[in-house]
């Protein structure tokens, strides 16, 4: 059921919790699909909506953003700012016709290597089912065509 499609997923992770959690997955030699490529930021609060859109524009089939659990932020409250911004990001993605399963925002701590691996496995499966993302321009054309067809 893989229909040969290997999705590309960009993971934007905060240095202190989620990136360290991904490191722990490695240190624990947990196996997960190679489809995710990780970008490090110091805090999930650094993540701009444009980072997510850029990924979809440049060929990502899915995007994961992950930070420290609420209350655990290395910078006290950057993750809360991300959580607030996330509402906007989700709306923005919906307006581009990007399916929900292609974007995920999670909290993963430095000790949750197993959870990180599991999140990647789940997400790769979900995006695989959704199929390749045609790109922002193509998706907007699809939307316009569907609108015109009504």
């Amino acid at each position, binding site marked *: 059921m893989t229909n040969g499609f290997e999705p*590309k997923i*960009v993971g*934007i992770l905060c*240095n*202190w*919790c989620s*990136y*360290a959690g*991904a*490191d722990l*997955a*490695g*240190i624990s*030699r*947990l*196996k*997960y699909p*190679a489809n995710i*490529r*990780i*970008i*490090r*930021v*110091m*805090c999930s*609060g*650094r*993540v*701009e909506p*444009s*980072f997510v859109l*850029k*990924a979809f524009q*440049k*060929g*990502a089939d899915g995007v994961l953003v992950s930070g420290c659990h609420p*209350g*655990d932020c*290395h*910078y*006290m*409250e*950057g993750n809360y*700012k*991300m959580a607030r*911004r996330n509402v906007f990001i989700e709306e923005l993605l919906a307006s581009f016709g990007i399916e929900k399963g292609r974007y995920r925002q999670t909290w993963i*701590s*430095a*000790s*949750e290597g197993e959870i990180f*691996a599991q999140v990647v496995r789940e997400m790769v499966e979900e995006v695989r089912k959704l199929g390749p993302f045609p790109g922002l321009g193509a998706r907007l054309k699809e939307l316009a065509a569907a609108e015109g067809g009504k």
Partner: protein
Amino acid sequence: MLEEIRIGVYVCHCGSNIADKVDCPAVAAYASQLPHVVVARDYQYMCSDPGQELIRQDIKELKLNRVVVASCSPRMHEPTFRKVCESAGLNGYLYEMANIREHCSWVTEDPQQATEKAKALVRAAVARVVHHEPLFERWAPVNPNILVVGGGIAGIEAALKVAAAGNKVWLVEKSPSIGGNMARLDKTFPTLDCSACILTPKMVSVAQDENITLLTYAEVEQVEGYVGNFRVTIRKKARSVDLNKCTGCGRCQEKCPVEVPSEFEAGLAMRKAIYTPFPQAVPNKPAIDREHCRHFTRTKGKCRVCFNVCQVGAIDYDQEDELVTYECGAIIVATGYGLFDPSVGPQWGYGRYDDVITAIQFERLVNASGPTKGKVVCKDGRVPERIAILHCIGSRDENYHPYCSRICCMASLKLAHLAREKTGAEVYNFYIDLRAFGKGYEEFYNRILEEGVNFIRGKGAEVTQKDGRLVVRGEDTLLGRYREVPVDLVILNTALEPQPDATKVAQIFGIQRSADGFFLESHPKLEPLKTATDGVFIAGCCQGPKDIPDSVAQGAGAAAEALSLATAGKVKISPVVASIDPDLCSGCRMCLPLCPYGAISFNEEKKVAEVNETLCKGCGTCAASCGSGALNVRHFTRNQILTQIEEVLAV
């Protein structure tokens, strides 16, 4: 004219750690084709001396002005290679790392996929490093004062060592006395030293040291600032006793009419509502437990007995919590452990049968200053003839804590010795494995074997009652036989677990926690005392179960860490901070309230926001919200991240 970009790429095999899955020569060959790459090499161990020398030579001979190392996590070796660049005259920030070990070779099954992924990560790093700029670390002064949190043996040792160096130290302890868990123990393994005899002199030294300010019945509420320059807010809880007036005569405790189960005696004896936790407490002055004191619990007929009997007028019912601030350069957190509550597992009969007790209760029972003056007796006063000690209660158990609590094997051997010495009883140890790991521990085990203690290899699975006598059931895995052992007293050696308030404490100090809930060190082997927050160190059982020698060693080690900072007098501050382009700033002020450190201010004259680089920690939350694109974070600029995203997708 812009300088020509010349990049060197170095792909590390990490022995076989990377090379087993990633075709390192192929990745290097791929990298050599990328724009601006002048040289790309693969090598066995980039972090080794010859590996580092390779980079240094190339920087000099090939005039490299950018370096990419594809190896382990930047959380591991970023500082190493940054130094290599600097030693060859290249700014350390003109370098980027691709994590092809933790995020690639170690987690990927298929070598071909791993190699492809490594290529993508290297390509993104190469594209990113083009946009790097030279950055310069700043220096901040370090306040020589040090804060120690937790007055158990680890915290005591840390405070004494810091004070001996001549630095001022505040020791904050939440209970009314220092001493911690060690104060409750009877003897210590394997030497059978009396715990109090080796601990109390140290407690007294703390009280007498003029460099140490002792704050008992106090808790840290807030930590502001950064390494070298912390500002700590401490809540001194209302003790209701004026420590300057109180002489510690003890009359108030004699006369107090309210009795409460004593925490120190593990519930085996009562204490009063005004109490010192134990006779050798430091300070040896009481506190009023307002939750139980009748002056505070009653609305009418308020009790004033202690006030009336105190001859020096030290009782102060109106005392309120007081907030004090302390400025220090480093913080040592040594907040210790909690104990597993065995009543959550009905199979052990704790709370159901009177003569099922915990190890700490037995410590009090056998202690000469304990509730029975050191007589080991059952609840009804009988001297037990048969005693069972159950190891691993709550430890090494999938249902509770999967980890080993480390000290219980040895503590159980010690308890077996004490039980035999005091009562002559037959003692049965139910154990899974016996872990006698320390110096002199195996010898101690042999000694206990020779003393005639019985060992049954198998976990004590259930405690029941049969004909009025306790029975321990378990499988003897050496005999392959099910055993039922009738006994008079059962001792449950319970797991060490994180303090109940570990979550809150971790958040206050910016410490992360490992999966078991204990505080997480920076590196399990090479940085066992450091945390994710620079200048905050951990020692003792708050990091994980430890015996006394290890806790003492860690306390002293944490003191050394804090003192290295203090003695250097200055500390490097990362140049990864926010910056604002005044030409782009629209003056909207959106960023001001977003900064948790108050590092952004508004320049009314120029009508633009400005960053105070000393306060900024570089999280970048402000940059992400800047509508005009004026705000950026150095080394994590919009341009750098967007380029990295674009290129990581290009393979």
